[in-house]
């Protein structure tokens, strides 16, 4: 750690590893001490090896440069991990599981009974006007009643230290491959940092996902055939698609590999057509079936929605889940939790204003210089307007956009994202804003891998952490609890190795050496 005087946490923010007085927090003390002992040179040296290893292993992220050329960049991993104590993680885990159960119930409700609409909580007109509302699956119940098999909600820590959900994502959240590869890279690059920590492992995510997909696959007792469906190598997240298929040991298919016959989905193999029971798809609803959604989609499989409706194939995430993570629906999630589960939300929302209400809109326009405005149907940080960072002209422009089409935007209070020490060149550490995207898998129950993807805004003061906008990532450590460890599902006494036969050293020169001795 450099001198604490050098490390200025932005006002109103809280830091993940240092307390308000600039002293290391208890759970981070030993990490920071190790960093201090290693010094900046170790960070610089490890950084050089990092680029090599990532390029060599092909762990890259495709970015489009200003000249329009697309090129691969090594996924920017910051070498200082983010550490989280066990107790804090337990709260997050419970809060997320609760939220995902509610979102799942909401999706089921939207396409079936509309109870939440009849209770007057969410307006029906708002639901059906969402671009991701999927009319073709109305009345279709997903196998096992699970819609949101995979979710990755974005969490942030506000200035007061409390955790809030910034965005839900129950379509095709990406990033888990980077979580796992980050951990592998950290154990190779900075093994010393792990000394003295019991960091909970995360590499079982692919098994969790595979188990969940098998559970929901309508295989009728057969061994279910699960596939990962990618739009193709041009997709920016293609690395992740291949990663998951490889780690689960299942086929990675493209649209041309799949075919639907008589409402049953097959894949084309050298041995003829083979039945597919569950599809983990990594493309949007719009593209999956040209007969039901966009007719111009070349990425889709004609008839797939029909097979899904017949219940012969499970699709994860289910079709139409996008309605639950729409930014205009986000506002209602705490109410959903109360309505469906009868519980108080464990994780709060960021205060959000819907601009369709005339009075709210006027309030928002007056406070435009302190609020954040987001378009409701965009992702990846595109079109986000941050009031305090905007010029007068930009504010004026944004106000016009809002007046022209209020339903297209929501306004949120600015969250003072927490910061974490981040290497900013020459081994020097400085506070940079971070968020957290934990990944949950919902099969027969909700399982969440400890930690998740910590994204970090590498530019000073920037609040935008998306990797397409110059964000990096950090390895996220959830520390194991002292004493009672939930991992130790069975207790094993230390075993003494059995006596093995001696290792032999044979051959001519071996004997020769023995003779010389």
């Amino acid at each position, binding site marked *: 750690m450099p001198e604490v005087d050098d490390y200025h946490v932005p006002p109103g923010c809280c830091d993940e590893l240092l307390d308000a007085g600039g002293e290391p927090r208890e759970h981070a003390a030993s990490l920071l001490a190790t960093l201090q002992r290693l010094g900046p040179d*170790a960070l610089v*040296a*490890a950084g050089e*090896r990092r680029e090599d*290893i990532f390029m060599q292993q092909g762990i890259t992220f495709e970015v489009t440069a200003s000249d329009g050329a697309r090129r691969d960049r090594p996924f920017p991993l910051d070498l200082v991990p983010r550490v989280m104590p066990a107790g804090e993680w337990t709260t997050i885990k419970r809060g997320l599981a609760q939220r995902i159960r509610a979102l799942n119930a909401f999706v089921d409700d939207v396409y079936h009974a509309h109870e939440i609409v009849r209770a007057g909580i969410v307006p029906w007109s708002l639901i059906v006007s969402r671009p991701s509302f999927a009319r073709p699956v109305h009345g279709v119940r997903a196998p096992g009643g699970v819609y949101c098999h995979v979710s990755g909600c974005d969490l942030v820590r506000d200035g007061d230290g409390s955790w809030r959900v910034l965005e839900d994502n129950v379509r095709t959240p990406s990033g888990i491959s980077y979580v796992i590869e980050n*951990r*592998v890279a950290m*154990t*190779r*690059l*900075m*093994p*010393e940092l*792990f000394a003295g*920590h*019991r*960091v*909970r*492992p995360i*590499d*079982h995510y692919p*098994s969790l996902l*595979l*188990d969940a997909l098998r559970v929901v696959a309508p295989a009728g007792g057969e061994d279910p055939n699960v596939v990962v469906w990618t739009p193709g190598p041009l997709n920016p997240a293609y690395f992740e698609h291949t990663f998951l298929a*490889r*780690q*689960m*040991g*299942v086929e990675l298919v493209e649209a041309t590999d799949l075919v639907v016959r008589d409402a049953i989905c097959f894949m084309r193999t050298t041995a003829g057509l083979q039945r597919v029971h569950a599809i983990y798809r990594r493309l949007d609803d719009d593209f999956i079936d040209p007969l039901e959604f966009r007719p111009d989609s070349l990425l889709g499989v004609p008839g797939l929605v029909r097979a899904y409706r017949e219940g012969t194939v499970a699709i994860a995430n289910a079709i139409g889940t996008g309605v639950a993570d729409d930014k205009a629906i986000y506002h209602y999630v705490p109410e959903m939790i109360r309505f469906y589960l009868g519980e108080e939300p464990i994780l709060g929302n960021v205060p959000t204003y819907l601009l369709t209400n005339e009075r709210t809109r006027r309030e928002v326009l007056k406070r435009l210089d302190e609020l954040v405005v987001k378009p409701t149907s965009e992702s990846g940080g595109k079109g986000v307007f941050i009031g305090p960072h905007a010029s007068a002209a930009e504010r004026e422009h944004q106000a016009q956009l809002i007046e022209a089409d209020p339903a297209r935007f929501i306004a949120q209070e600015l969250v003072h994202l927490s910061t974490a020490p981040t290497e900013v060149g020459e081994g020097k550490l400085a506070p940079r804003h971070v968020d957290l995207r934990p990944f949950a898998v919902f099969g027969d129950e909700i399982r969440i891998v400890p930690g998740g993807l910590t994204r970090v805004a590498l530019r000073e003061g920037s609040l935008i952490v998306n990797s397409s906008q110059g964000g990096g990532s950090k390895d996220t450590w959830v520390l*194991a609890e002292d004493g009672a*460890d939930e*991992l*130790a*599902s*069975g207790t*094993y006494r*230390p*075993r*003494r*190795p*059995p*006596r*093995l*036969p*001696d*290792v*032999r*050293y*044979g*051959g*001519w*020169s*071996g*004997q*020769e050496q023995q*003779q010389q*001795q």
Partner: protein
Amino acid sequence: MLARIAQELFWLGRDLTRAEHTARMLDGAFHADVAGALADRGVTLSWEGVVAIIGAKPPAPGEKRRAPTDVPPPFDRHEVAALLTIDMATPASIASCIDRARERARTLRDVISTEMWEALNSFFLSLGRYDLQAALITGPYSAYQEVKERCALFWGLVERTMLHDESRSFLEAGGRIEAADMVLRMLRVAVPADLSAAAEGAQPGHEGEAIALLHAVGGVQAYQRAVRYAPALPAVVRFLLYDDGYPGSVAFSLQALRAALHTADAQPRSSPPVLRLGRLIADLELQRRTHEGFDQTLERVQHELELVDHDIDERYFAIAALAAVHL
């Protein structure tokens, strides 16, 4: 061919394969150690485990041999990794293995191809250039990667450039018997005595251990493609013992060993090692179906493999050793 040459080739194959397996095992143990929390899950691919597998440091002359009943002192990773990677005084270390392999290859220049010799020699020379001591401290991943790649290069050149004759068979036989032996040792150390072959995945808590085992052989992805279930310890042990399609499994290595000896032997039908291997392979196939406890199977297979080793010595090499004694 000359018995002495055959023996050198056989041990060249063994030394190289031992180096590779040691590198994979150390990398696996290192990763399991650093990635953490696995200790709570009963992983025995610990540093003590690795030392037990590879054969603990043999006592120096005059040093008292530790009684086998003693509980070994806890090893830490810096100590073990250094000992088994770069310590030239430890015959089990990777550097010692490579050194021996290169010395052998030097006497075999007329038998092996020039490309093979150059691959091996530059491997040896690269060990000297590499600052292994520093690599071990900052993270030995790249060093072990290098060992794996160089070994693969050598075997690839065997495939491409070496005549299919007796010499090649002995080289191959050495590599295969060592691979079988290393995997057996690892399984014996890592598999709990009470693990039953019948209880597929029924015992929770072993998942981390199972993954660590696969890492230490380099078979994670092969397993994932072949089995398509989350790694559970019994399934992984079955995979590493019996799988016909995975080149690192014990069954696969034994079959390849048998094939190599069959080719090399003038009269394979009356050759004790070939016959014994035939029985062992058939026995293994039977075990696969009967679900006997792993513990007994592993112990018996390893015992049989030792006997095969002695048979090989007797049948092909003893005649040369006899001369050596009279030197």
